[in-house]
């Protein structure tokens, strides 16, 4: 690996000082992606800051205003957190899919988000939950809707000196559920050829969709919302036919490429299949 300095701050203030310094400063959470990227020259760094020891970044708490997940909290803890297990199930689905058990023990949710891979598995799940990113710098904190957080493959809107502190998922309402599915060629170790995360809230009296969120991975330069499909769903009764229409509409939001992981045509087909399946799972979970 190329040479870089390394720091391990234990407070947010110390970390923000480090991130404000000149040069390329990179956060290390689990290191599962960044170390490989540094080794192969896909990213460079003058300094690497291990942020796992900062208390704010380890937060995992359900409060009156939502579920707070510190950016450095590891995926195993998140997937096993009771509110995630019972309510934020799309997030649990996706956290358990990332890499192997050995990777999940180390990888942090914030790392998966800030790595900003088009294929990042947790991102569609978070997008489907209208997640907000809380970002800090020496000049204060700001909130960014996660749907506005990604600028391109491997790129976020974070400014120099800013770090992701936590992700906040709004409280779950009655009669709502989420789910995430991805397609991989093997049963383990692969990156999503396509991933789909869905959230549905139903009006129990007439089975109409009050709110729908669908987000897709690996079909565009960044994870994307399938807004056309959401519009198909909202206000209508959640029937098999409606789910099929939404699945077809979701393809409109996908602009996939052909690569070693799959052809563009194949990916479009998978968007339809996975959208349909995740919506079906949401319905089953609500009716559960």
């Amino acid at each position: 690996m190329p040479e870089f300095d390394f720091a391990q701050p234990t407070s947010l203030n110390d970390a923000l000082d480090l991130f404000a310094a000149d040069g390329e400063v990179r956060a290390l959470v689990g290191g599962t992606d960044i170390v490989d990227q540094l080794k192969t020259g896909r990213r460079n760094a003058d300094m690497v800051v291990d942020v796992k020891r900062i208390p704010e970044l380890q937060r995992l708490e359900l409060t009156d205003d939502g579920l707070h997940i510190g950016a450095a909290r590891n995926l195993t803890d998140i997937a096993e957190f009771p509110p995630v297990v019972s309510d934020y199930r799309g997030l649990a689905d996706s956290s358990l899919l990332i890499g192997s058990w050995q990777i999940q023990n180390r990888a942090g949710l914030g790392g998966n988000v800030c790595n900003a891979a088009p294929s990042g598995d947790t991102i569609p799940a978070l997008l489907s939950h209208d997640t907000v990113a809380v970002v800090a710098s020496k000049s204060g904190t700001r909130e960014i809707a996660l749907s506005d957080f990604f600028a391109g493959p491997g790129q976020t809107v974070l400014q120099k000196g800013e770090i992701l502190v936590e992700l906040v998922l709004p409280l779950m309402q009655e009669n709502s559920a989420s789910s995430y599915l991805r397609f991989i060629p093997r049963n383990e170790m692969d990156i999503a050829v396509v991933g789909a995360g869905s959230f549905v809230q139903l009006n129990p009296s007439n089975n109409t969709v009050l709110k729908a969120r669908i987000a897709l991975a690996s079909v565009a330069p960044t994870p994307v919302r399938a807004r056309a499909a959401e519009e198909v769903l909202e206000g209508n009764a959640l029937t098999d036919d409606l789910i099929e229409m939404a699945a077809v509409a979701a393809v409109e939001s996908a602009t996939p490429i052909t690569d070693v992981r799959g052809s563009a045509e194949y990916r479009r087909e998978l968007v339809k299949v996975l959208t349909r399946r995740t919506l079906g799972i949401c319905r089953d979970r609500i009716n559960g």
Partner: protein
Amino acid sequence: MHLKVNDESLEVAVDAERTLLSVLRHELGLMGTKYGCGEGNCGACTVLIDGEATRSCITPVTSAGGREITTIEGLANGDELHPVQEAFVEHTAFQCAYCTSGFIMSSAALLDRNPSPSDAQIQSALSGHICRCGAYGRILKAVKSASGEGGAE
């Protein structure tokens, strides 16, 4: 920096960018942990950090500072091999054995957390390891027998 490896406290002078794998092998001479891919994909480099199975090839050595690191060389309890080590020999759970250290470390971590795992739990815990000799079936049997669930072959 300060490292605690196989119950020994060590001071090593290394650069921050070094991986734990590189330091274990080259500075500490612990050659039982193997390089397979350098990308965290094959599992050959797996060690325990505070009891958790971890890919040493993508772990910066600095992030392991002060934590309990266990390698294949430190798994035995004195002269007594870990039950997983014994079971791997008994069940011929390897051919070339290059991936074996990694499989054993993850299996040991699994049994530590869950002393009687199901087949599915074992397979899931080991699914991040590649054995190109295809000994998966034997490895499964070995781990089951080490957990006290499986009999001899």
